C-alpha cells in the first residue's frame, strides 16, 4: 500500500478499505461493518454485504437489509457503459486517425484534466455537459450541439442529458480548428447515403487519389534511401578491401562517419576523372599519399556495373554536359570551368525525380547562363542515355 497520503480521490458513500477490515466514509476510517442508521438504505445494505462477506457480526437489521430488493444504480451503469466505450472505442479511434497526436501539450492536459478549464470550487470531472465541453474547448454550446447532432463527436445520453467524455474533447478541438465549410462538408458526409451519393463518391475518389500519391511518394523515398545505403555500403566495402587492417574487420556504424568524410573528397576527384578534365592544381594541395588513396578508391568505386553495381561513365563529356547518377540520387555537372559540381549542394537544386532530364537541363541552363546544358540520365537498367535535353 502507499505509505504517504496524496491528494485524495474519493467518492461519497462507504468505500471498502484495502485491508477489508472496514471502510472509508467521508474521509474517515471506520473499523468493522456495524450498521449505520444515519446512512441511506443503499449504503447500509452495502455495509451489511461486507459484514457478511468478511466474517463480521451481521445483525438482524442487516439481515433484513440483505433481503431487500434494491434498484440497480441505473445512472451509474449508464456512466460506466459510456466510459467503457469511450476508453475502448472512441479514444483509440481518435488516436488512430491522428487526432490525439496533433493535440498541443495544453490541449492534452485539458483532455486529461478538464477541471483546469472549468470554474467553480468543486473539481469537475467527466462526463461533461454541453456547456462544459464548450467551455473547455473554446467552442460555443451551439457548435457542440450541432457537432453532436451530426455525430461528428461522440456523445452519450446519461440520465436523459447529453454527456461527453475525453474523446469528445479531442474531437471538439479538431472540429474547432476547421472553418464552417469544412464542418459543413463533414456534416454532409455523415448524413449522406454512402452507396448513392455523388458527393461521397467524389470524396472517396479524392481520398484514394491522395493515398495513391502518398504511397508513390513513399516508394520513391524508399528507393532513394536504398540507393544511399547501397552507396555507403559500396564505399565501406571498397575501403575495407583497400586497407589490409580493415579487410578483416566488419565495418561498423562507428566507422561510417569517418568513411563518409574521407570519401567526400574522393568523389569529387572521381568526377574529374570520369569527365577527363582533372585540374592538376586541384590535387596539388594534398599529400601524395592522400592523392594516391583517393584515386585508388575511386577506381574501385567506378567499376562497370556487374562488378560493383555501377555503370561505366559514357566517356569524357564536353563542356556544359551533365551526367545524372540516378542510383546515387545526385547530379554532377561539367560546365565550361571543367570542374565537377555536386548539383544539389553546389547549385542549390534538388533532384526529385529520376530521369527528369529536361527539367534538370533547363534549370541548369538558367543557373549557368550558357543555355547549352545537356543531361544524360540513366534508365532503370542503369544504362546512360545519350539523349540531348535543353
Amino acid at each position, binding site marked *: 500500500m502507499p505509505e504517504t497520503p496524496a491528494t485524495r480521490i474519493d467518492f461519497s458513500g462507504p468505500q471498502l478499505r484495502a485491508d477489508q477490515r472496514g471502510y472509508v466514509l467521508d474521509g474517515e476510517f471506520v473499523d468493522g461493518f456495524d450498521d449505520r442508521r444515519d446512512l441511506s438504505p443503499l449504503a447500509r445494505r452495502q455495509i451489511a454485504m461486507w459484514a457478511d462477506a468478511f466474517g463480521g457480526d451481521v445483525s438482524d437489521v442487516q439481515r433484513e437489509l440483505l433481503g431487500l430488493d434494491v434498484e440497480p444504480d441505473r445512472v451509474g451503469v449508464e456512466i460506466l457503459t459510456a466510459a467503457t466505450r*469511450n476508453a475502448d472505442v472512441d479514444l483509440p479511434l481518435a*488516436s488512430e486517425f491522428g487526432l490525439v497526436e496533433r493535440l498541443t501539450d495544453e490541449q492534452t492536459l485539458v483532455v486529461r484534466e478538464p477541471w483546469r478549464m472549468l470554474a467553480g470550487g468543486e473539481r469537475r470531472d467527466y462526463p461533461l455537459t454541453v456547456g462544459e465541453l464548450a467551455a473547455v474547448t473554446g467552442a460555443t454550446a451551439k457548435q457542440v450541439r450541432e457537432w453532436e447532432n451530426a455525430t461528428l463527436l461522440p456523445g452519450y445520453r446519461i440520465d436523459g442529458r447529453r454527456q461527453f467524455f475525453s474523446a469528445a474533447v479531442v474531437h471538439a478541438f479538431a472540429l474547432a480548428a476547421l472553418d464552417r465549410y469544412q464542418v459543413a462538408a463533414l456534416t454532409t458526409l455523415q448524413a449522406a447515403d454512402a452507396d448513392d451519393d455523388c458527393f461521397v463518391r467524389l470524396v472517396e475518389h479524392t481520398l484514394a487519389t491522395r493515398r495513391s500519391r502518398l504511397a508513390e511518394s513513399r516508394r520513391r523515398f524508399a528507393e532513394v534511401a536504398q540507393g544511399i545505403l547501397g552507396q555507403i555500403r559500396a564505399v565501406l566495402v571498397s575501403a575495407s578491401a583497400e586497407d589490409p587492417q580493415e579487410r578483416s574487420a566488419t565495418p561498423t556504424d562507428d566507422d561510417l562517419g569517418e568513411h563518409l568524410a574521407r570519401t567526400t573528397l574522393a568523389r569529387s576527384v572521381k568526377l574529374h576523372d570520369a569527365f577527363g578534365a582533372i585540374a592538376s592544381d586541384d590535387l596539388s594541395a594534398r599529400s601524395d599519399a592522400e592523392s594516391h588513396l583517393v584515386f585508388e578508391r575511386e577506381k574501385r568505386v567506378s567499376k562497370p556495373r556487374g562488378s560493383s553495381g555501377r555503370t561505366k561513365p559514357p566517356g569524357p563529356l564536353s563542356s556544359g554536359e551533365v551526367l545524372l547518377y540516378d542510383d546515387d540520387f545526385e547530379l554532377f555537372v561539367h560546365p565550361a570551368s571543367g570542374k565537377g559540381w555536386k548539383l544539389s549542394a553546389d547549385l542549390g537544386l534538388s533532384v526529385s525525380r529520376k530521369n527528369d532530364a529536361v527539367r534538370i537541363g533547363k534549370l541548369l541552363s538558367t543557373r549557368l547562363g550558357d543555355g547549352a546544358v545537356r543531361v544524360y540520365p540513366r534508365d532503370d537498367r542503369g544504362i546512360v542515355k545519350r539523349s540531348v535535353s535543353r
Partner: protein
Amino acid sequence: MWNRPGSPRYWFHYTERTRARAIVASKTFKVGTKHTKGRAGVYVCPYAPGSRTEEDLAGRILDGSYHEREKLRAVVVLASGPDITFESDPDTRDGMRHLADPGSLVELPNQIVGWAAIVDGQWQHSLTLFDPLALP
C-alpha cells in the same frame, strides 16, 4: 508495500482514468466488446502504480501500442476473492484474467478496494488504499 504478509493479495487493472473512476463508483466492471486477444473478461496484473515505467508497462500489458497509452494513467485495485477468481493469462508474462461475456457486467463490491490515477503528473491514490495505522 503491496502484498505484505497478512494482507490480501492485490491485483491491478490499468485503464483510462474516467473509466477507472466509473468502475470504482459503481463497484462493477463493464466488460468491453473489443479485446485485442479476442477473449473478453477482466484482465489484471501484479504491477502496482508507479512500480514500472510507462514504456515497460506498455510493453507488458498493451503490446507496446501507442494508441492505448491513456489506459496507463489510472488503475483499479482489486483484492483477491470472494466475488471472482483470476486465472493465469497465457498471453502475458505475469497477467491474470477472469473471462466473461463481452459487454456483460461483473459486480465486484467485495473486491474493488480503491483506485489510483495520474493527476498533476503524479500518481494519486484513493484514501482506501492507505494503511490507517500509518496515517497521522
